[in-house]
């Protein structure tokens, strides 16, 4: 692992997301008053301004809303991985997440692909939520 690999340094509002990932569970903030899911974490519900929220399990499945394949220049810690993909996944609960799609040839990336979360333990402290294709595309 590259020594400069970026690691999350979350504040108190954000920390539970990463703690649940560490336990291989995808949970998002859900407004306790109006039920709206939100990501990334924030102190208030953008739908109703309530401060009350629960870290609620989500299905971990979604659809590729967009993708790119990255070439230099990239962060120093990723220089030996180029070209690598990045995706925006719309989770079935609504929110969007930036991640990577594993187990796919970058030439096969497509908007609309169905994907499911997979948890990659980076080290003893930190787990990254990445995605894999599901259904017909899952052959890889």
């Amino acid at each position: 692992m590259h020594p400069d690999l970026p690691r999350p340094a979350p504040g108190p509002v954000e920390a539970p997301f990463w703690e649940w990932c560490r336990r291989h569970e995808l949970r998002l903030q859900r407004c306790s008053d109006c039920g709206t899911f939100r990501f990334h974490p924030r102190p208030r519900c953008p739908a109703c301004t309530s401060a009350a929220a629960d870290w609620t399990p989500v299905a971990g499945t979604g659809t590729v809303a967009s993708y790119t394949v990255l070439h230099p220049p990239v962060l120093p810690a990723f220089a030996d991985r180029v070209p690598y993909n990045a995706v925006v996944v719309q989770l079935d609960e609504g929110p969007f997440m930036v991640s990577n799609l594993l187990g796919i040839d970058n030439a096969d990336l497509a908007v609309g692909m169905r994907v499911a979360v997979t948890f990659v333990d980076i080290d003893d402290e930190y787990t990254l939520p990445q995605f894999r294709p599901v259904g017909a595309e899952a052959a890889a």
Partner: protein
Amino acid sequence: MSPPDRIDVVGGRSAIAGIGETVYGKNLGRSELDLACEAIVAACADAGFPVQEIDGIVSYHIEQVSEEAIVHALGIENCSFMARTTSGGGGAASIVGLAAVAVASGQAESVVAFRARNRSKGASYGGDPNQGGRPWEKAGRSVSGGNQWHHPFGVASPTHEMALIARRHMALFGTTAEQFGMQSVAQRFHASHNPRAIMRTPITLDDWHNARMIADPIRLVDCSLENDGATAILVTTPERARDLAQPPVTVLAQAMGAGPIHVALADYFRTSSSFDERDFAGRHIARQLFARAGLTPADVDVAAIFDHFTMAVPLSLEQYGFCGLGEGGPMIESGATRWPDGALPVNTHGGSNGEGFIHGANHVPEAVRQIRGTSTCQVVGAEVALVTGAISDPAGAVLLGRG
């Protein structure tokens, strides 16, 4: 939900009297303060205006040159207004908007708006970690705030972010990467006429195809340049401007807006992801801007559109109402944005991939030259010019016209 119409007291009550630019180039070897001072002094010289009568200073929120440093370097003794715009390149045009607000409301008489940058690769003058090179490359291994939602996935630079937005637009509307390339080619053609431009050799669409990929679908020649330089604009009252050296260019209207896209990448498609008016600030800005000026997009003769990447141009054309949603790519393909024959020449100085990248501030002097009639790609009889900030941020825009 639209805000209620309000009576605008800013439009028409200020004018750009002077523009100043340093050389734009790679590794100039000068501090940002030095460059800023040169541009400000040049803007005052252009206007025939005494530097020490400046009484207001406006810049970008991430400008590294402080108001204090400007005041001390130039001996400005009566500074009565200081303000900064929001959201990086989103606030590019709004340095003029804020200056206009200050002048129209009597907070200051003569405001200088500026931006200075050392962004050449390897440039590191001044010792500040934010000066020189690419700030995102120096984010380090511990990432907090918005960066924690994308840096761990190797997504860090504005190019990465805009590539994801561009690909979504392509998927929804059939926009092609080649249409971004056509804007790149048009701007490099404009730059070939401009002695200030860093990239004066025109390119072809074949050159675009052969340019190396940075972040699919964005190629090298779609990207803004990484260079040094500074730009300054002097905004004063219409009365004062009339007594100065240049024909006044009136600030017809300014407007700002914030859309939900670009919350540090993670949330930028919110729940609609359809590029409609819920997603970007541009529609909101355009609605206010044109209403305040009493104009429509059809009245705009020439546009200087924030183009950190060429994909921002078709999206901006849509958001500002020059074409329908999803029609920005075909509009570029039709030649509409190319001088001299296009209906709406865009970035006639060569833009950020041709003239240079002063974070969009250098788009303002070009719009001023168009209204004065002195551009190297002059739109004949241009009377109204639009200048916009970045499409993906909370942003702003101004409409400029004859005094």
